[in-house]
């Protein structure tokens, strides 16, 4: 089991920012025409070419779709869009980096100055930029030799990096923010964010402040591959750093890994602490410029975002926010459900009940299904839950006989008691009984 340190109320305030990498869903890689499907590849090194293998003379050509999707994400995170931006080379040596540099963005990212709302307050987004992913390393022992195996199917896949300000005040908030970002990327249908496969990777910059000021150090916890681990890692760091501070020691600025088995972070003494990436503008890719009008168009072409859908569905259809939260998972599903709600309203079906049914039958939501088919499916299945009329009449008669005082009050004009009768009848029949059917039957009986 994990040897988690217990967390006490602290005299220090957590100061935390996140750096989140997510692979973009595109047909081809970021700077070449190789297939972008590293997780679907049946063999290593089958999606490569001179460009993504870093062969002599291989030149990058930027994928327009990946740029547009990055900007879409930036706008969805309330960012401003750079009217002028460019790619830069970031240099370091590692066997999974074929060119000895990664094409990234240094001082002019596509998107900057945004924010995301969480239940514990707003977190500012510093920047959203686009870069290329590295290859994948596997560490093995082959014929007694310790080796690393390299697969470049993933090398050059478009990767967005979202960097937040150190506005996060708790581990739970960090987790919520990361989940919100994943929801947004999935909603926009620009990335799968499969955590186990590394489609989304989390890093937390953690430090503690005793006086509310920004501390002069931070530890970077890298390569976290689940939301739970993110929360654990931050909690662990909070306790570890508080202990050091209590003893009058300053935590060192360093990169730490996270051991999921022990639930602990550990120091990674790598060359990277002395890294000097020697950024300079990528000479092989001309810069990118947008006019203010193009930026406005991009803004206008943004789909309705999850929080906007939430507000509208609450207002227009009276749907429960908890249910909406579970249903707003993609643009296409939102568009489908909009039609479903309208049809349901026309047929006077209880929308929240329909919503629960859809959540329980999420599997039927395929790209091909129509609103009519969803409705039909719902009505079909709920019909089987309709109660036999004779039995219903028996139960109603019994309930009315058991509550003579309420019947009197109802007949005297206290119509809201109908709800009370419905509740009584439902407990005796089936909890899933059709409310419309029950309520109609009760009113009929009472009014006779």
């Amino acid at each position: 089991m994990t040897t988690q340190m217990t967390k006490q109320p602290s005299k220090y305030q957590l100061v935390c920012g996140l750096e989140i990498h997510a692979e973009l869903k595109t047909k081809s890689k970021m700077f070449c025409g190789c297939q972008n499907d590293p997780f679907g590849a049946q063999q290593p090194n089958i999606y490569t070419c001179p460009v993504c293998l870093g062969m002599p003379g291989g030149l990058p050509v930027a994928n327009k779709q990946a740029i547009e999707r990055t900007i879409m994400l930036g706008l969805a995170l309330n960012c401003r869009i750079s009217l002028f931006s460019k790619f830069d080379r970031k240099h370091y040596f590692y066997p999974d980096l074929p060119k000895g540099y990664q094409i990234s963005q240094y001082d002019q990212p596509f998107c900057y100055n945004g924010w995301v709302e969480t239940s514990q307050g707003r977190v500012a987004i510093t920047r959203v930029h686009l870069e290329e992913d590295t290859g994948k390393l596997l560490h093995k022992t082959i014929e007694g030799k310790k080796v690393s195996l390299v697969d470049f199917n993933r090398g050059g896949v478009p990767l967005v990096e979202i960097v937040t300000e150190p506005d996060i005040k708790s581990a739970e908030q960090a987790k919520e923010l990361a989940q919100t970002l994943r929801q947004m990327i999935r909603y926009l249908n620009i990335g799968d964010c499969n955590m186990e496969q590394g489609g989304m990777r989390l890093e937390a910059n953690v430090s503690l402040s005793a006086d509310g000021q920004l501390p002069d150090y931070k530890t970077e916890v890298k390569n976290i591959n689940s939301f739970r681990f993110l929360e654990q890692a931050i909690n662990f760091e909070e306790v570890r750093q508080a202990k050091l501070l209590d003893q009058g020691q300053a935590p060192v600025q360093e990169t730490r890994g996270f051991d999921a088995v022990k639930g602990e972070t550990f120091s990674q003494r790598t060359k990277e602490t002395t890294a000097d990436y020697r950024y300079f503008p990528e000479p092989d890719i001309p810069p990118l410029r947008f006019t203010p009008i193009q930026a406005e168009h991009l803004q206008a072409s943004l789909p309705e975002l999850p929080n906007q859908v939430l507000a509208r569905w609450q207002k227009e259809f009276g749907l429960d926010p908890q249910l909406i939260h579970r249903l707003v998972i993609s643009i296409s599903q939102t568009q489908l459900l909009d039609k479903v709600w309208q049809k349901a309203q026309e047929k006077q079906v209880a929308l929240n009940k329909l919503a629960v049914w859809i959540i329980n039958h999420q599997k039927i939501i395929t790209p091909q299904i129509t609103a009519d088919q969803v409705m039909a499916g719902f009505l079909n299945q709920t019909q089987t839950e309709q109660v036999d009329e004779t039995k219903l009449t028996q139960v109603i008669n019994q309930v009315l006989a058991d509550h003579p005082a309420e019947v009197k009050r109802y007949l005297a004009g206290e119509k809201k008691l109908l709800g009370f009768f419905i509740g009584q009848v439902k407990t005796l029949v089936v909890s899933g009984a059709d409310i419309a059917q029950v309520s109609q039957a009760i009113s009929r009986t009472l009014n006779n």
Partner: protein
Amino acid sequence: MMVFLWYQELLIEMNHKNLNSLTLVQALKALADKQISLDEIYESVNSAIKESQKLNIYLTLNPQARVQAKKAYQAHLPLAGLPIAVKDNYCTKNLKTTAASLVLDNFIPQFDATVIYRLKKAGGVVLGKTNMDAWAHGSSTETSDWGPTLNPRNPKYLPGGSSGGTTAAVAANTCIAGLGTETAGSIRQPSAWCGVVGLKPTYGRVSRSGIVAMASSTDSPGPITKTVEDAALMLQQMAGHDEADSTTNPQAVPNFGQDLKKGVKGLKIGLLYSDVPELKKVMSLIEPELKTFERLGAHLEPAQALDPHYAIGVYTIVQRAEVSSNLARYTGIRYGQDRSHLGDEARRRIMLGTFTLSKGYADRYYTTAQKVRSLYRRDFAKLFSKYDLLISLSNPGFAKKVGATKGEAMFGELEDMLLEPSSIVGLPGINVPCYRDDKTNLYLGLNIMAPMWREDLILRSGWAFEQATDWNQWAKAK
């Protein structure tokens, strides 16, 4: 009728033995007229290669050359299967490509550079891969890991570089035409030293895809040929937008042959760097040659330009920075040998580039250099508002003796000083032979420059100069 006569005479003179001396235009015509066969050309070229073996021109010969040539000829392709010498930094499918470095001593590309692909499609044949300064780092071909190439004009001397193998191949008539690359002088300087024509196109006119990168923001592949007309023909096949190179010009390529023979009458030409103290002696040698332009009806006058000495600094810094980055991929994991095989010149360039990009120094060196680069852009814009063309010497003097580069960290940069200002701003330029020293048999070259994308003007004036003077042996041969 006249044309037919000179042509007949030429063929008789060549006696079917010196067909290797044919220019591209002559060879195409002779093949089209069935005066000679492709086999005869190849035999002639092959014996020239054998005779010049001690010059160390070719690193690899293409064993498939004649088979490929036959196919191209039978398919009636524009270049008719003629043999082209290719600098060893162009990736050639299934043919070893080393960039003259031990790091790539076993590298066989699985792909063709775009220019090679286009050349093959047009019926050109890669005859062999020519020696060069390792990684194109140098102006001597002396930094090759396979030893220097010797100058065919006088083997005691260097051919210049970095495309020294190809310029020597052309000068020694071991091919019909050749391919080089230039970053700042690497086509024009060795062309000047070997007495051949070398065209550095506008940066972005010819695709860099598949060519071992040296300094990405200035690398320009270009033809090295016997005459200006040949250069126009070769450029036509090489140039144009490439989807695999984002920095290539998307506009249509003009027909470079169209106005080639229009002359220079009425053009305003500015003479650059005639007052640089180091050049006094050689300038006096070529002064009579410069009068040619006036004789042909152009207006020539000395022009005031920004001191070329600053361009050395700009070029050195930018190029070293880009080199340190471009050579980072050579780790020996996916191909080639590990980094311990990098030669001295590459090592010192990588070190300096790493330094000029590092924390605390990037502003002082790298960014400053890019700003001075803007000053040169501005300066050339001003010059071209006044002049149609600019001319200068291609380099400060005659070829240097073998061994001249030892211990000279800045040999090439000083050698290429006159070409660096226009190179760092991307301008096109051509070297045409403009003087020969009787005693040493060594040449001087004239550099003609035009605004971006105006190779047509360069070719036109180069052709006019070549026709009006006696320095080009092949143009004179008719």
